[in-house]
């Protein structure tokens, strides 16, 4: 690899736009219920005092309520805090509405998560309005077409990283650009930890080579960055901060998984079995709907004492039937050396194969079994999830493994289609 060591800030006009829906889940709840607007609201995984706050509203954030806080702590800081459970379809619907609006400006649109989008407008006719003009228009269209309470922060720059940084400069409802003309002034105002990806450990690494500010980071020669990160990461930062693109790769799906945080402590595999069944049923259905088989099963168990055990196994034959996957996962559960109260159970399949035909076997009618699985899937698709389920699942509480939004990724959105 050739390292360019004398690069200046990218001189091209910015064409990358990052759009971030402010306090996504809470804002959408306030849009849905006008009586909640202007009030501190927190959307939570569980409404019990130990439940985790997933999204505080702008008003709650101003009062000190943060993401990841327990409900009881949020209530202590802000006694008037309104606690709401998640409503995944509401958020998916707003995500899809935003996606529809944004796709009017470019085909080069990447949803980064349920509440983040990146657009590259290079070469598209919409560029004639100018990047700031498009940013203002998008904000207005979201207010008109999705809801007047929905605000987004828009960041514009010449690469994904700086566009995201620009979108974080003024929250909520910001519109900022980082370009060759103003990067110096913006970097001067920021701390190292304001950069996405630079937290405690990377700050320590940078401090060890005498870098204490974002401007130091920008001005550091490549050899210094290599010394700090001891890998090619140093060069990536060199390019990122100068506005050159390094993060425009698209991730591919490598696994399907489901997990569940247990509201009460269960210990033995027999006690955990109904929950494992439900997780596997949900995951297996998603796997098959996407046209995959899997050659490996992985089980992760987090315990209430915060310890963790996991194991993954690959098999010569690709798995298709949830019952087969369950048997493998259940066997894995027995391999755990611990018999402690479980906090969270996670199961996933990996080694995905996109194949319609499976290997035939001498003593087992594979085709007959797969026809049965497909027939069960069709019934569940027609009448709703879990219409047909293994009897074991009835031993579990009906509320176990509820619908959830995955954070940090939108792969799950491939699985949903909505016609409006």
């Amino acid at each position, binding site marked *: 690899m050739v390292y360019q060591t004398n690069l200046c800030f990218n001189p091209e006009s910015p064409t990358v736009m990052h759009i971030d829906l402010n306090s996504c889940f809470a804002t*959408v709840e306030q*849009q*849905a*219920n*006008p*009586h*909640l607007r202007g*009030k501190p609201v927190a959307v939570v995984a569980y*409404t*019990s*005092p130990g439940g985790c706050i997933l999204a505080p509203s702008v008003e709650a954030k101003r009062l000190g309520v943060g993401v990841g806080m327990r*409900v*009881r702590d949020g*209530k202590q800081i802000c*006694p*008037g*805090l*309104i*606690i*709401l459970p998640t409503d995944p*379809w*509401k958020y998916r*619907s*707003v995500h899809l509405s935003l996606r529809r609006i944004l796709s009017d400006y470019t085909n080069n649109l990447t949803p980064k998560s349920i509440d983040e989008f990146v657009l590259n407008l290079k070469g598209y006719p919409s560029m004639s309005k100018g990047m700031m003009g498009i940013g203002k228009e998008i904000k207005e269209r979201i207010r008109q077409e999705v*809801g007047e309470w929905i605000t987004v922060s828009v960041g514009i720059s010449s690469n994904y990283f700086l566009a995201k940084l620009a979108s974080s400069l003024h929250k909520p409802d910001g519109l900022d650009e980082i370009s060759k003309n103003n990067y110096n002034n913006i970097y001067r105002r920021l701390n190292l930890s304001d950069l996405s990806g630079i937290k405690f450990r990377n700050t320590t690494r940078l401090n060890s080579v005498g870098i204490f500010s974002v401007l130091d980071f920008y001005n550091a020669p490549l050899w210094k960055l290599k010394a700090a990160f001891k890998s090619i990461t140093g060069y990536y930062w060199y390019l990122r901060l100068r506005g050159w693109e390094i993060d425009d790769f698209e991730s591919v799906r490598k696994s399907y998984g489901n997990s569940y945080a247990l509201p009460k402590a269960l210990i033995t595999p027999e006690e955990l079995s109904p929950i494992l069944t439900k997780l596997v049923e949900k995951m297996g259905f998603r796997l098959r709907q996407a046209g995959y088989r899997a050659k490996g099963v992985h089980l992760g168990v987090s315990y209430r004492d915060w310890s963790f055990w996991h194991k993954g196994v690959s098999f010569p034959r690709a798995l298709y039937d949830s019952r087969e996957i369950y048997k493998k996962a259940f066997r894995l559960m027995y391999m755990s050396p611990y018999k402690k109260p479980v906090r969270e159970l996670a199961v996933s399949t990996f080694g995905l194969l996109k194949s319609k035909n499976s290997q035939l076997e001498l003593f087992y009618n594979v085709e007959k079994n797969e026809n049965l699985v497909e027939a069960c899937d069709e019934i*569940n*698709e*027609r*009448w*709703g999830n879990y*219409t047909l389920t293994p009897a074991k699942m009835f031993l579990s509480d009906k509320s176990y493994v509820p619908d959830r939004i995955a954070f940090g990724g939108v792969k799950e959105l491939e699985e949903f289609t*909505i016609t*409006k």
Partner: protein
Amino acid sequence: MFGIMIQKINVPVSVSLSYNSKKRRVFPKWVVWNGRFYPIIKVGLHHSYKKGRVLFHVFSVASKTLFFRLILNTETLHWKLEEISDGLPD
């Protein structure tokens, strides 16, 4: 349990749905619940989801004092009131 004053009810209700062809907007005009008539003054959000093959439309709407989550089952065309709240913490 902490929470907003939300009441999950899931009962059949009478709803008047209006369609404006010029604005291409559909909106519930009023709801009758517990023998009381509530004019809808604001549609906060409209979204939909599927359960099996049945499509449900969800209207999150507000009267002057209350919030209603109204669900239209597009197979039966029947309405249900799934939730009400007053927007205050309990």
